[in-house]
């Protein structure tokens, strides 16, 4: 076998794959945050908790109702998205005329409450959730072993991200959403129900987080803290990509996952901080983010 800069290819490609997997979650979560922030002006700190809820709903469906992974992939985003709609209607909608900070504080508080409730009920040790048998096993590609489930996660995440991109950039509904992000008053004056659009957008963003949570359930153990660990990195990804940019969130999510993976190969000590170093550099050079519009 060949070696690259003294690194065995198994290690290199293994870390690249891991980076791609992490990048899949960064992309899906930062995409949801970007969509929500764009229209609602809310920095949704509950996003990590809602991702965790997705994984837990999948686990509960399996444990209590005997519904498997594929059901969970559909039901969990709908259930968690619906809980997001309730939160938007009852609480967030009262904050839109206030500063960003209030939405951030509210969703941060909600995240703490949700995580606390799940910690109280299920502990912190985590529960196993197995991938469906059809996705068990893997492929030996010669230079590396590719687990089927991980390949599926990357594909599903790409489909979810580009599906969302298509919905927002290429459809009539997406045009309403983009227009309402720019000027909600005028969009309302054209006869479009902007409050309902806002509610559905929040529900969609939350549902996307839950979808990511279901995808994550068989990889990471289903744990009340799984979202809290991830969301800090995701916020750094959003800052790097630029708040409110759809393609920026996707590209930055995958790109940073891969950069993180490569760092783990070439300079393992730096892998935990590389994203934050990049964030600091981007903030110095281009404060609006790589794909953000100038403010």
């Amino acid at each position: 076998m060949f070696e690259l800069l003294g690194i065995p290819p198994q290690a290199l490609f293994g870390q690249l794959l891991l980076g791609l997997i992490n990048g899949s979650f960064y992309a899906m979560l930062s995409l949801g945050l970007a969509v929500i922030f764009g229209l609602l002006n809310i920095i949704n700190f509950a996003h990590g908790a809602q991702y965790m809820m997705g994984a837990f709903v999948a686990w509960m469906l399996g444990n209590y109702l005997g519904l498997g992974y594929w059901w969970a992939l559909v039901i969990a985003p709908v259930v968690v998205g619906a809980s997001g709609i309730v939160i938007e209607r009852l609480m967030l909608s009262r904050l839109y005329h206030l500063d960003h900070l209030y939405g951030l504080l509210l969703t941060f508080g909600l995240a703490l409450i949700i995580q606390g409730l799940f910690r109280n009920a299920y502990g912190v040790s985590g529960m196993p959730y197995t991938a469906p048998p059809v996705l068990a096993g893997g492929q030996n590609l010669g230079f590396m072993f590719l687990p089927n489930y991980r390949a599926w996660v990357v594909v599903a995440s790409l489909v979810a991200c580009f599906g969302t991109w298509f919905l927002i950039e290429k459809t009539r509904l997406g045009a309403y959403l983009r227009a309402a992000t720019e000027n909600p008053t005028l969009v309302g004056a054209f006869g479009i129900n902007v409050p309902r659009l806002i509610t559905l957008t929040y529900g969609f963003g939350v549902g996307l987080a839950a979808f990511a949570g279901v995808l994550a359930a068989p990889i990471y153990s289903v744990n009340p803290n799984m979202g809290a660990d991830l969301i800090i990195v995701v916020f750094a990804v959003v800052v790097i990509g630029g708040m409110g940019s759809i393609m920026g969130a996707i590209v930055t999510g995958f790109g940073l996952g891969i950069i993180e993976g490569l760092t783990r190969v070439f300079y393992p000590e730096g892998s935990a901080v590389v994203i934050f170093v990049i964030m600091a550099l981007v903030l110095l050079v281009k404060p609006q983010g790589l794909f953000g519009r100038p403010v």
Partner: protein
Amino acid sequence: MAEAARAAQTAPLLAVRDLEGWYGESHVLHGIDFEVQEGEIVTLLGRNGAGKTTTLKAIMGILPRRSGSVQLSGRELIALPSRTIARAGIAICPEERGIFSSLSVEENLMLPPRVLPGGLSVERIYELFPNLRERLSSQGTKLSGGEQQMLAIGRILRTGAKLLLLDEPTEGLAPVIVQQIGRTISQLKREGFTIVLVEQNFRFATSVADRHYVVETGKVIDMIPNADLDANIDRLHSYLGV
């Protein structure tokens, strides 16, 4: 004059009565009264800050705090949200044009939903504004000022709204574009649209309108039919300070 007399006998399409409006704590409209017959073009004239734009915003329901009465074909609209007012058949072309930069020209054009049957076809809008057809995939705000204005007017013609509120459609545009917009507005009148026009360009206003309402410090203080303009020109000039 016979036409005006006949119109006066029928119920107005738009009747604004004692309309008051506020920006936050500041009381801007102090009882606006005017009416518009179906098929008429009426202007609101007045100095800067008189309350003309605010009146259009209050009719459209985008001024948050307002009171009084705005009736469209006898239906009271004052307490309704702007999206419901739009669906009753009123459409606005705002002063700042409101072209969306994250939407293409075509998306901007297709954005306002059809609220009533009978709007112009997209093909007809391209006939009125041929420039738009060539720029469909451009970013909305990459158009020239004149083209943006055509887009802002064109997109509300599709919706089926019969009452158009146009806020300073000629502001900052070259004379040749102003003429084109003037011809289009006259054409729209022939096609049955009713138009309330806020205008600083007095000559433009007199070239298209049937009647002029003079607004001063949030009140309508006079009405001058365009046909009687010559006899009242000094009075109007003194109102406008020109």
